[in-house]
């Protein structure tokens, strides 16, 4: 758990607008990075240039906000039940990739709660298991990092 940071904040916009700010490169370039290139689908490539720093990675999960009235979203155990979630991995060479997960939940009054977790590989490898070949599916190993 020490290799993970979490942040939470309320944003003065509805989830659809926040989602756009999280996924549209023209918006991302206003707050996250100077140049963004993003294939918004699981397995899609992602790259971010922040000053002289280039981060590359890929998208794991794309779950846009569900249509519904504010207040229907429930944040439970850290996950928004009917909210939105974006998960991607990024790395600065030569460091291993870390995993960023951003969740959104609607709040009354047209606001949004955003929850963000960035985790380093040691923790994240525990979360994703893949069956190892040659063992009849009885053995699971951690998912490999970028480049697989």
């Amino acid at each position: 758990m020490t290799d993970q940071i979490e942040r939470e904040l309320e944003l003065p916009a509805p989830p659809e607008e926040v989602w756009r700010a999280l996924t549209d490169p023209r918006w991302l370039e206003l707050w996250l990075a100077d140049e963004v290139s993003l294939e918004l689908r699981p397995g899609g490539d992602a790259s971010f240039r922040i000053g002289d720093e280039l981060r590359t990675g890929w998208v794991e999960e794309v779950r846009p906000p569900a249509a519904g009235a504010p207040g229907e979203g429930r944040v439970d155990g850290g996950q928004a039940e009917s909210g939105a979630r974006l998960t991607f991995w990024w790395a600065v060479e030569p460091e291993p990739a870390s995993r960023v997960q951003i969740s959104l939940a609607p709040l009354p009054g047209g606001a949004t709660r955003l929850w963000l977790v960035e985790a380093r590989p040691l923790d994240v490898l525990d979360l994703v298991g893949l069956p190892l070949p040659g063992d009849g599916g009885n053995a699971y190993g951690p998912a490999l990092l970028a480049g697989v």
Partner: protein
Amino acid sequence: MPDSDGDLAGPAAAGGAGGPTGPTGPAVTAATRPTAATAGTGDATGAVFTALADPTRRRLLSTLAAQPATATELAGELPISRQAVVKHLSALADAGLLERERAGRDVRYRMTPAPLSEAMSWMAEVGGRWDQRLAALRDTLQARH
């Protein structure tokens, strides 16, 4: 090492925006504040996180990692006043990251021999960068409402 397992909770338990808010960052909740692990070390850990959360302090630390220097020498390399440098160096020294030694009429600062936990450094740097980005995201959205 901080044991944050017990205190890291989902947003429902963290209570939303009940905690203190920094000048530019999002609300600090129970889920984001470093916690005290054992008696006597908790405050030290919190002080290290606070000390590392500032990019100028991280830069001072990495300069001093190369070689010790006085506040005047360091101020010569940065676009901030000597007074501001002294304030940052005091925060780093209070957190146990620097030690002071007399060098004539000046005080020279050097990194303490104890190695800094790499995990703590990662958390402080990554967390600090997200604080800046999320504040910018909030400002971007605020400007349209």
